[in-house]
């Protein structure tokens, strides 16, 4: 078989990590949302919030399980498919992943048990604390993995001897220059993603007249956080862009399809089909001055053009040009939606049937698509490097044949498709069903009809103790 193993391994990594990132992007926000609801239920002494938290915990459990199992695959894939990467950067990136396991994975996994199953075993306060710990754990996890990724984007704090990276200054490794903005950008993205899911589900229930109190609570809480976070994300994204221009100018030139400077100012290419062979854009539609203004905050600022970089050091232009526009476009749409909703809320017109509510009900995929588009932009934008300036992706692979990778890729696609379809179906079914009130405080009544008789017996036994 005459297939390129590097290409196959890249497709496999892209596929498995894209599948994986969907779940953390959702569960980071979802755990915070559940913790908030449990906190409200303690504060307001209203079981309504507890039941709503219980409902979202079921969604969380299904999503988290998919995130865990698809994440383990990645840890091992570094070794199976990218052993030269593992060897070259193990000294530097390895400990960051190690700290992620030690400070986040165990924390999340252990307290998840209490969060999911402990409602009748621990006090409400401890149950709430477990949810908070899980929520914090997800952010700690994001901290370490984005630290590792940022180091790969723009490595600092290391030295290279015989093709192997050695740590020199751990603070510089962990807090490499692109890390703070990347971390902020991703965590906000995760909260926004969950926000739109909660908003959409609320709108869906409200339109059908089901679970109306829950729906209105969800709509209000989601809008409240989205109207703050979506504009904030624009600002953070802008600074992340400035930061990227400073440290990875080829990526910016690529995602803006900016081939060369013509003096004066840089226009913003709104639409084009970049042609990498001819080093130009076809069907270009550009807005004068806007490129300079956005990228340098100066009407006449210049950014390096792609032609200033040797061909072998340029990222693929078309995919990141498109994915970046998808991400930004969705981001702007999100701000619009959040503002419209908030204005209607302020005028007391939020809870009315109509176009706005129907649009809200369809917004759940927005965050996921934006997150994926953003990751495609930053990861493909780093190409041809896996670690910028140090290790090329093509040199990072394991010494294994294309067939193995192809077979495992096909298996991953089949298995993930099956898991994804089932998981999506079950989540949708849970959402359709909605929350089921659990009755008065800590009544250990049966959760499934089948076990009713059994439980009645146990209650009787306990009464006799």
């Amino acid at each position, binding site marked *: 078989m005459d297939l390129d193993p590097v290409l196959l391994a890249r497709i496999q990594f892209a596929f498995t990590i894209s599948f994986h990132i969907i779940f953390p992007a959702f569960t980071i926000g979802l755990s915070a949302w559940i913790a908030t609801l449990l906190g409200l239920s303690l504060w307001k002494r209203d079981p309504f919030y507890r039941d709503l938290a219980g409902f979202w*915990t079921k969604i969380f459990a299904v999503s988290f399980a998919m995130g865990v199992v698809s994440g383990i695959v990645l840890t091992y894939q570094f070794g*199976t498919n990218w052993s030269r990467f593992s060897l070259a950067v193990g000294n530097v990136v390895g400990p960051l992943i190690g700290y992620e396991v030690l400070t986040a994975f165990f924390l999340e996994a252990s307290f998840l048990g209490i969060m*999911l199953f402990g409602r009748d075993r621990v006090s409400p306060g401890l149950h709430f604390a477990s949810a908070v710990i899980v929520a914090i754990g997800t952010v700690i996890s994001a901290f370490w993995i984005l630290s590792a990724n940022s180091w790969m984007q723009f490595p600092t704090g290391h030295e290279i001897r015989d093709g192997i990276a050695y740590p020199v200054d751990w603070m510089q490794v962990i807090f490499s220059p692109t890390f703070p903005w990347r971390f902020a950008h991703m965590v906000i993205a995760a909260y926004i993603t969950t926000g739109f899911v909660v908003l959409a589900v609320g709108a869906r229930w409200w339109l059908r007249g089901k679970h109306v109190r829950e729906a209105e609570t969800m709509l209000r809480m989601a809008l409240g956080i989205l109207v703050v976070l979506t504009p904030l994300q624009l600002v953070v994204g802008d600074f992340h862009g400035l930061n990227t221009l400073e440290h990875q100018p080829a990526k910016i030139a690529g995602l803006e399809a900016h081939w060369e400077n013509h003096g004066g100012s840089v226009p913003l290419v709104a639409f084009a089909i970049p042609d990498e062979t001819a080093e130009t854009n076809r069907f270009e539609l550009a807005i004068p001055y806007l490129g300079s203004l956005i990228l340098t905050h100066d009407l006449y600022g210049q950014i390096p053009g792609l032609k200033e970089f040797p061909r072998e050091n340029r990222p693929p232009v078309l995919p990141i040009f498109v994915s970046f526009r998808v991400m930004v476009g969705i981001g702007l749409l999100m701000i619009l939606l959040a503002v419209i909703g908030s204005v209607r809320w302020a005028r007391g017109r939020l809870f009315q049937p109509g176009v706005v509510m129907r649009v809200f009900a369809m917004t759940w995929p927005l965050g996921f698509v934006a997150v994926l588009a953003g990751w495609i932009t930053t990861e493909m934008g780093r190409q041809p490097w896996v670690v910028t300036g140090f290790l090329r992706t093509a040199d990072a692979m394991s010494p294994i044949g294309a067939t193995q990778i192809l077979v495992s890729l096909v298996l991953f696609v089949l*298995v993930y498709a099956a898991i994804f379809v089932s998981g999506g179906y079950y989540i949708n079914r849970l959402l359709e069903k909605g929350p089921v009130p659990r009755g008065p405080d800590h009544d250990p009544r049966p959760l499934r009809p089948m076990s009713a008789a059994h439980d009645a017996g146990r209650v009787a036994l306990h009464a006799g103790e």
Partner: protein
Amino acid sequence: MEANLPAIWAALIGVSVVLYVIMDGFDLGVGILFPFTRDERERDQMMNSVAPFWDGNETWLVLGGGGLWVAFPAAYAIIMPALYVPIIVMLLALIFRGVAFEFRWAAKPDHSLWDIAFAGGSAVAAFAQGVVLGGLLNGITVENGAFAGGPFDWFSPFAIACGLGLVAGYALLGATWLNMRVSGDLEVRARRWAKTLLLVVLGFVLIVSVWTPLQYERIAARWFTWPNILYLSPVPVLTALLAAAVWTTLEKERPFAPFAGSVGLFVLSFFGLAVSQFPYLVPDQLTVFDAAAAPESQMFLLVGTLALLPVILGYTIFVYWTFRGRVRPGEGYH
């Protein structure tokens, strides 16, 4: 200190692997035993007995794999590509059984596919882990510090025997766990399963113990030369005594002792393997000293590990304590 770092890390990874094998071992074992009852209520009980723990248990696998990468990148970069096929199979199997914990409840009453996914995934993951162990013990072709063999080099009767042995071993842990954690008819049957499995496991332990020294002079030399033979002779003796203790405590219907004894058998088996292999990570090719990461990297993570491991063990114990006692039928959040 620096000179000892590789040995310390080898010990830490060893501890992670042992903790993983024991903890995920019993929950994989419960999955392996799933087909032996057809009663939905019993299966619910079995799954609920491990549901709060499985995720934490599986994290030790990430620590083991991640730890190997951090501390011994050169070994990680050889072992993973060499054992590509069984590792991918293990990961795929773990996916199925992991999501089954949630999907099975969400799918009810049409959950039979997820019963199969849970049981099949558990059994295949256990088998693949055994094959990984067997394949590693068998040795890996290495040239210039990189894997230089074919995709099916790991395949050998010995590796298959290790795979089957680990399935039986996990099932033994699962059965003794159920003996401790469920009630009624299922508890009685769990003890019956445990007895059969104990005999099967002992058979496999015997096979591996005879096979490895016969095949590798290095291992024979380690065990059967003076004075090692004196220091190491308690290992087989203790194994025999523990096995007998598991059997009799099962007869006496003790809740905890059979599980503890089975854990002891695993620890002894692991100790035996470690004695045979140390200091090799890749047999005859790469020692923990050759494969070690930069000392500053090992040191950096060691500080965190020593500080955090007690905390992790602390809250792990807390979680187990929270869910102590026999499973209450119908318990769960579902």
